[in-house]
């Protein structure tokens, strides 16, 4: 089966390019807190060896953010800062030399704050992933939808944020619309791929332990890849992140295996 990739905009992350038919990139996320930067560095090196191509770290507070440069200097792959609630952490992360930001429209909503992040990111050519998650959909949107998660509200949350970024002439955007339901996830990404051509970061969120996570990620990510949708993937597992890389590779091998008929 030949997969016809949907061509999306190119976005540069460190020395890699996401989108526009470039090879699908495998990502993961550290389980350690950057406060313990040595642990994080060891963790990332292990993941690099296993084939992780981009790594994300959670930035819960300022002291974590201020260790980004130490981590960045010790690793080889691009580093993404996962920012929630406090926009100032994004600014520190950018100063510290991070390669990309992940923002969640569900918890950083102040237009002024977003604007400051975008300005700083623009200056350093740092792309932003708008990461919508079914567990943190903006409350107003959820309430409008009778508290039901649907593909449409995930897409709406992303589009709103995209508009804010585009208003500042910022286009280095990657989008993710993760739900814990593989079916909602598939439908959400199908929808957004028809609306805009920003590269897509695929994933089924909160997919559970290794067993359930493999199954749900295969379904959610696999079906989309078959349809040519998606430019980078992250398998979420409540397990050693090494297994996220292993499963991601297996999914890619399954989709892109050679055809004989």
């Amino acid at each position, binding site marked *: 089966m030949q997969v016809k990739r949907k061509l999306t905009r190119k976005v540069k992350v460190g020395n890699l390019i996401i989108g526009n038919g470039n090879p699908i990139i495998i990502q993961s996320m550290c389980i*350690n807190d950057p406060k313990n930067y040595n642990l994080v560095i060891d963790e990332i090196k292990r993941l690099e060896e296993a084939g992780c191509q981009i790594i994300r770290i959670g930035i819960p507070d300022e002291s974590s953010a201020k260790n980004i440069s130490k981590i960045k200097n010790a690793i080889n792959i691009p580093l993404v800062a996962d920012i929630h609630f406090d926009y100032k952490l994004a600014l520190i992360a950018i100063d510290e030399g991070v390669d990309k930001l992940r923002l969640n429209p569900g918890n950083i909503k102040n237009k002024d704050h977003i604007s400051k992040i975008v300005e700083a990111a623009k200056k350093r050519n740092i792309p932003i992933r708008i990461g919508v998650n079914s567990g943190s959909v903006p409350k107003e949107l959820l309430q409008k939808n009778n508290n039901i998660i649907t593909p449409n509200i995930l897409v709406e949350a992303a589009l709103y944020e995209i508009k804010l970024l585009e208003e500042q002439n910022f286009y280095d955007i990657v989008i993710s619309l993760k739900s814990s339901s593989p079916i909602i996830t598939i439908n959400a990404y199908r929808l957004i791929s028809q609306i805009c051509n920003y590269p897509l970061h695929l994933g089924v969120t909160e997919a559970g332990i290794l067993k359930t996570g493999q199954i749900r990620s*295969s379904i959610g990510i696999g079906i989309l890849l078959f349809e040519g949708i998606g430019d980078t993937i992250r398998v*979420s597992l409540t397990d050693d992140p090494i297994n996220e890389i292993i499963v991601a590779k*297996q999914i890619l091998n399954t989709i892109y295996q050679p055809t004989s008929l």
Partner: protein
Amino acid sequence: MQTNKPCNFSTVEFDINNIYNEKIFNSFYSVIPFFTYQLKLNSINIHSQLKFLLKIIIKYKIKNIWLNFSSFKECLKLLPKIKIFKNILNLKLAINCQEYSNIQIQKYILRLYTKLQKLRFNNLSLRLYKNISNYNEAINLIKNTSKKFFIKNFYKISLCFFLNNNPFNIINFYHLIISKNYLLPKINLHIEYKTKLSLIENSILFSLKFLNLILDKCSIMSKIKYENEDNFNNTFLDTLEILRSLEFNNIPGVYFISCPTCARCKINVIKIANNIYNKIKLINYPIKVAVMGCEVNGPGEAIHADIGLAGTKFGAIIFQKGKVTEKLNTTEKLEDIFYERILNFLNASQT
């Protein structure tokens, strides 16, 4: 897309020898009868095979079984021995036709039918497994089995084609055949790969079939290859999980969600999630259980679960049906407490 539809269990098939596990069958007793099973018969130990099968059919009220034979000759030889099933099952005979040309297949089926009549078997379904190297071979077999003789004398005809190497090619091919109306109503296509697939390949194969309405009537076999065969690895349980993840609304058991843990995590999600999952994976009752590490997605996901746990700065909160029912100021014995709450929740739900 499937949401809130029931799964037609009879289209899902298993090798009964491979998946039978008393504990699991007893746990999911309510749905066992509705799936379809296969048993490969051979002359060497047919007696013990049939004895085992009879026991299972009666105990679990199983209705759908394909008896698989490696060749027509083998089938003809062993037919008298399966007489005991005449009145218990709607007999389904599956035959491996790799070595036969279409003409030979037709001749053998005529012989088979004659013998079946002599032995007074009625209401038979027939399945033919055939390797093909191009699509025309398959079309030819379909045309042959669409002839009056087959349609008149067999209850159902099921055809399974093996294409080389790529298990997903068959999905496209079946889609093409069905959408071009090559099949008569009595003829069904069966999706099965020659060897076992990995859990990931199987999940994707099932998704491609079940998310495509055109393949609705196709049956599909679940054959999973595991690195080690142990208690955690069971094709039946994993197939239930695949069907659950495809959001069918009639799948028993727990829909388990948990976050992958990160720097924000306040509790040991990996340990708690894995321990809780292993304790509840054989629960029959359909509930959604969440184990979340922090306040970013924790409350959001836990609220949509029937019962959920979310880590906080000081400990954890427990949600039930969207409402906070308990605030814990410690992370000590969190999994014991949460497990107990799950059991209480189940007891309350079932009364």
